[in-house]
């Protein structure tokens, strides 16, 4: 039976896994789990995935969640090693990014959740320390440019020769910044990276729904760099 992908197009880790399945031309059955409608909290889904996490996959009876684990599992079971190096040093470098991502890059989504989506979609009041959180976010973005993109010298994370699962994880978080009309001129290296990754059709494909939503929201006029993608 082909893999089943439980995903939500507005979820960044969902888009990373979806992107790999498209890039690797893996046969899969897509099942949208709409988190906004609480479809991840049904009895049926909770039985399958007790954390109610999205994305998840099932491979016949085997169920797995956590996007980075899913990405690696797909690579190993479908021989997609071009997306995740087998050489132990190169693999360790990609793993180091993927681990750091959880407490580093993921601050983008945590910021958006607290200050943009929470207030708009869930009427949740934003915390009071916005300036401090923004400062921390800037720190992490500079870090990505300096360390993982080699001050702009690397085309892909950790100077890998081709796109890896680390890039799939990063790019989908980075475009979260579109929803706050972020001025990418502050980070020209990230700007170049976004342009480069979006030259890949599968990355554009998996972000269509998210960009569609942004186009509808029109909270303010988006800057030119972001507008070209919506």
């Amino acid at each position: 039976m082909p893999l089943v992908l439980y995903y939500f197009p507005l979820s960044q880790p969902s888009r990373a896994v979806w992107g790999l399945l498209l890039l690797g031309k893996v046969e899969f059955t897509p099942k949208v789990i709409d988190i906004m409608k609480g479809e991840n909290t049904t009895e049926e889904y909770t039985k399958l995935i007790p954390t109610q996490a999205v994305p998840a996959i099932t491979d016949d009876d085997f169920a797995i969640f956590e996007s980075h684990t899913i990405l690696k599992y797909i690579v190993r079971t479908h021989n997609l090693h071009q997306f995740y190096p087998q050489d132990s040093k190169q693999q360790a470098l990609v793993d180091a990014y993927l681990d750091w991502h959880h407490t580093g890059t993921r601050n983008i989504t945590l910021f958006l959740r607290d200050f943009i989506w929470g207030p708009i979609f869930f009427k949740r009041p934003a915390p009071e320390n916005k300036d401090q959180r923004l400062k921390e976010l800037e720190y992490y973005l500079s870090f990505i440019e300096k360390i993982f993109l080699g001050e702009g010298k690397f085309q892909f994370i950790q100077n890998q020769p081709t796109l890896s699962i680390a890039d799939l994880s990063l790019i989908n978080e980075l475009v979260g910044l579109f929803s706050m009309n972020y001025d990418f001129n502050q980070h020209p290296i990230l700007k170049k990276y976004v342009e480069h990754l979006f030259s890949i059709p599968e990355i554009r494909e998996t972000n269509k729904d998210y960009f569609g939503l942004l186009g509808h929201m029109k909270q303010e006029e988006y800057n030119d760099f972001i507008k070209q993608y919506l």
Partner: protein
Amino acid sequence: MFKLYIDWISQPSRACKTAFDILHLKYETIPLWIQYGQHKTEEITKLNPLQQLPILVDSDGFTIVESHAIIKYIINSRNIQTTLYPSDHQLRAKIDQYLDYHHGNTRKCFTYYYNILIAPKLGIKTGDDILKLEQVVNQNLSYIQNYYLKDKDYLFGNNVTIADISACSEIMQLNTIKFDFDKHPKLLNWMLRVMEIQEMKDSHQVIMKIIRKQNPNCIFLNI
């Protein structure tokens, strides 16, 4: 021979040390003290601009950070066959699933510990909601107990794996702040079982000193 830079008070440092000692590897341990800023020296910053520990430097100069990546790198590059991280795809995926979950969830133990014990000492106001953190920590511990551990001896199968070592090292930190494990009896038993491993005991000697001072009635002082 590789070098492992650690801080005994850093939970991920202890996880790496314990794993490598269980595997009887020969390496140089360089203990540093984050509390004295030794992670921010020019030498360490050159090795890891993130200024975080642990750091591994292999004999050819290859440097790697992030504890889970470090442990996996050694197991992969030395071709070590071990029950700590078995090669079966599905079992490995389940262990990876826990190790990914760890960063955003179990690691909240560190945030809670930091807010209770460290931030006040340094006069830092973190802005974190301590009551909320305590709730989250309890939720995460329940989850590990009821979803991963259930009635087994270890998180995955019959043997200790790097998931047990990483999780237990992290959760042990809570003993320095008198955390009440009464809501998590199975988890407590599992921790005691994992702490029976000599290499875990060795890695936790410094933490035990802190526990003796901060929490003298702690059950772990008797193991």
